[in-house]
């Protein structure tokens, strides 16, 4: 570290070689961000293909085969190459800054974690030119995923790619955990860490416990497909198709928390800053996060209620219970805004958007915990609506809140607020137009993953509405991309602390130097920068909790 600390201040235009070889957590975080953003556009195009085909009955634009690849790759890309790494990227950029450390504990492993991502994304997408990408749905249920039923190389590439993503996640999780436990600045006790750091810590524990299970399951599936294995292959003796679902969901349900907890962390930083108040119930928030993480490993079989192979009351009860810590967080966020002085920057708009949309995803999730109700809407568009209110209304809104909030720190320039607000309004309206009708379609029995629905089933107009909503989301991305472009060309200089933030990243320059801090302010609460700013105010105001 000593050699890096002697380098001059940050320079961010030192050429491609520097970006390709960097081990600076901030540059790696930025690489994560842009890689995820590009793949967000790719996954979005797959989603638009699906919505375009469903706009009216009949197959107008693609064959069943293409359609099946589109929805499979949409979900795979969005989950494994957008939401998870986007949030990991925020973690990479922010965790060392927020705990007052010069870098991650293992900078080279950090670089490896990142470079596995574009490599694996290319491998998964390579299926398209090589005769078709994976087309079994992102859940890749056996026996459908066995070579007998899905002989294409796309599925093998998908397995290899996901194994690499899993490796990337595991390495990243170890790195986060060691960094958080070993590299906090003096005074930064665990209960003074920003809530975002807590969410990254809990997420990393989830990754460390869950991802190896998925990775081994993928290797087993690969053996089944290519070397005559019989783990999940019912056609051969001993294979068990339900085993795949158990190991798959043992990771993939906690993965939902991996995809939402850091977004909750982002919102928990943005809301207090723009309410000019501390987060209401900091400790309750930390315990709720840990509670969601712990309960998250006991609910996986609620994806399997209709298989007739799981003990239903247990998984139903645990699923109901996980609504409680989530509810606690929701009330704490609202209480944070109460009696505050709210400033509606774009970041704040996205954070409030997160609250109002994630609320719907939480409520319809609790509805699904009632097993008989799940019997009716499982594998229908009700589930599609639910997951998108959680992952789009929740994670993606949180990610955009974070981008607008920390962009000035990353690049020293603020994104344009006017364009940002247009972006927010477009995406908020488009999101609801797309996904709200899916509740109604699902309740009336419209199954998901179907290339063409019967014209007489009564689903035509709501499907058209959802397609219009999908294109609204797509159009709303244009002001955002334009915003990035003009901000790089010459946006408003941000200064060190444009929002009056609370946490340590605002105590250094924007962008920060490679070694992060020249000197650290004293850390006596979870809001060291707030304390510094108000050091001369009435003591009652700055007292810790």
């Amino acid at each position, binding site marked *: 570290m000593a050699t890096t600390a002697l380098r001059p201040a940050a320079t961010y235009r030192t050429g491609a070689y520097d970006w390709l070889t960097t081990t600076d957590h901030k540059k790696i975080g930025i690489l994560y961000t842009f890689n995820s953003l590009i793949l967000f556009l790719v996954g979005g195009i797959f989603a638009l293909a699906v919505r375009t085909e469903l706009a009216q009955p009949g197959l107008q634009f693609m064959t069943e085969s293409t359609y099946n690849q589109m929805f499979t790759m949409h979900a795979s890309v969005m989950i494994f190459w957008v939401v998870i790494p986007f949030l990991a990227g925020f973690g990479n950029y922010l965790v060392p800054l927020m705990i007052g450390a010069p870098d991650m504990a293992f900078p080279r492993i950090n670089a490896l974690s990142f470079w596995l991502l574009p490599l694996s994304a290319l491998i998964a997408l390579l299926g398209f030119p090589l005769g078709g990408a994976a087309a079994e749905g992102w859940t890749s249920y056996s026996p459908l995923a066995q070579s007998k039923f899905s002989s294409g190389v796309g599925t093998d590439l998908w397995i290899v790619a996901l194994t690499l993503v899993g490796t990337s996640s595991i390495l990243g999780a170890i790195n986060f955990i060691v960094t958080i436990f070993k590299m906090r600045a003096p005074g930064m006790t665990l209960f003074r860490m920003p809530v975002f750091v807590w969410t990254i810590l809990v997420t990393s524990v989830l990754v460390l416990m869950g991802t190896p299970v998925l990775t081994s399951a993928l290797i087993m599936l690969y053996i089944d497909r290519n070397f005559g294995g019989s783990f999940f292959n019912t056609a051969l003796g001993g294979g068990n198709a339900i085993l795949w679902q158990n190991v798959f969901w043992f990771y993939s349900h906690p993965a939902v928390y991996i995809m939402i907890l850091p977004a909750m962390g982002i919102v928990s930083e943005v809301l207090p800053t723009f309410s000019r108040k501390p987060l209401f119930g900091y400790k309750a928030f930390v315990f709720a996060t840990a509670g969601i993480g712990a309960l998250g490993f006991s609910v996986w079989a609620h994806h399997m209620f209709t298989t007739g192979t799981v003990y239903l009351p247990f998984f139903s009860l645990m699923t109901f219970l996980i609504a409680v810590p989530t509810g606690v967080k929701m009330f*704490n966020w609202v209480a944070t805004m109460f009696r505050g002085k709210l*400033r509606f920057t774009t970041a704040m708009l996205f954070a409030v958007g997160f609250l109002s949309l994630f609320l719907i995803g939480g409520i319809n999730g609790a509805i699904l915990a009632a097993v008989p109700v799940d019997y009716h809407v499982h594998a229908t568009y009700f589930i599609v609506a639910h997951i998108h209110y959680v992952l789009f209304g929740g994670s993606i809104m949180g990610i955009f809140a974070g981008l607008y909030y920390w962009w000035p720190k990353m690049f020293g320039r603020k994104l344009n607020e006017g364009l940002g607000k247009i972006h927010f309004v477009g995406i908020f309206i488009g999101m609801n137009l797309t996904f709200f009708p899916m509740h109604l379609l699902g309740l*009336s029995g419209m199954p998901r993953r179907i290339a063409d629905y019967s014209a007489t*089933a009564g689903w035509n107009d709501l499907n058209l509405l959802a397609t219009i909503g999908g294109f609204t989301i797509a159009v709303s991305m244009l002001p955002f991309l334009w915003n990035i472009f003009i901000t790089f060309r010459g946006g408003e200089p941000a200064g060190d602390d444009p929002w009056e933030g609370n946490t340590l990243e605002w105590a250094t320059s924007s962008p920060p130097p490679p070694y992060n801090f020249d000197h650290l302010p004293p850390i006596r609460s979870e809001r060291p920068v707030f304390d510094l700013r108000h050091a001369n105010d009435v003591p009652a105001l700055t007292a810790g909790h």
Partner: protein
Amino acid sequence: MLLSACTDFNVRTALPPDAASVQGQATRNLYDIVFVIGVAIFVLVEGLILFAVLRYRRKSGDDELPPQIHGNNRLEIIWTAIPIAIVLSLFVLSWQTLNTVDAHTPTPPVRIGVVAYQWQWQFVYAPDGVAWQDCNAPANAGKCVTVFGTPPAGGDRTNWTPPTMHVPVNETVELQMHSIDVIHSFYVPAFLYQRDITPGRDQVIQFTADRIGTYRGQCTQFCGLYHQFMEFQVKVESKADYTAWLQQELTPPPSPSPSPAPSGPAGSPGASAAAGASVTLQLTASGIAYDKTDLTAPANTPFSILFANNDAGIPHNVSIHAGSAGGTEVFRGEIFSGVGTRTYAVPALPAGTYTFACSVHPNMTGTLTVK
């Protein structure tokens, strides 16, 4: 609020369809309660968010710090305890409903075998004392009724009827469900019920339909390329209509039928071919594929196809379409489950290019050249 545009569904409401079964009604009652509580929570929290957003916006020029409240233990205990009480009562309620929905009677009056495979359904009605699995046995010939589904020709649903399961109203029906290949799922929205059918794990479900009508059903577990064609219908009818339907299906069809009775597999194919047929083509299906992709037949002369289905339990046939697979069907051979053999007598066809295909598996195709 209820717009009953269709007979089965209230598509435009936030409610499931009106249940057509006793079990579905129990689920519907549960849904209504859960939904009302969900809406109440939604209105409360969304109202609080909206109130905070409108009431506490920062006025321009106001630079004073608001009171720095870090929390309130009493409030936090309240909003932990009340949600726990709500979800626990919902859990108990849904468990009770679950016991109603999944209750089984040991002696259901109607038992139907349901066979799911890529990408169709087969419904098997066996007489008392015969398991549906044994219907293919020679001793049970003519005793069982089997409904075969076929996908719509060329993917066009306009004049297509999905396979129909007939059940009597107000009687408990047991479905014994079996999958031949991958996981499928039996779903009838009007019954508010679905159950996955996993290969190697046959599933038994029971329901009591209590409303006469025809209800849409569909496979809900993604099962591959033509998953979208796995639709079916459940026709709930009076006991008398149901019995009449079963009787009619058991009576062999009148003899001048397009596909003649099969000649015995042991018979010499050339000699037993239909009158006038001088040419016999051989075709075999195995592993959901034909062994040939090209066949040639003489023009303007009847000919026969000796078709062997080597896929155990999987139905196949040979149908002939003018031009491409989406063209007019000029011949359809009897669909039957393997392992077995049939000889199809094909009428005289004018010269040209035709496509032969399996009516059950649209991806099994080949070219028939008539010259």
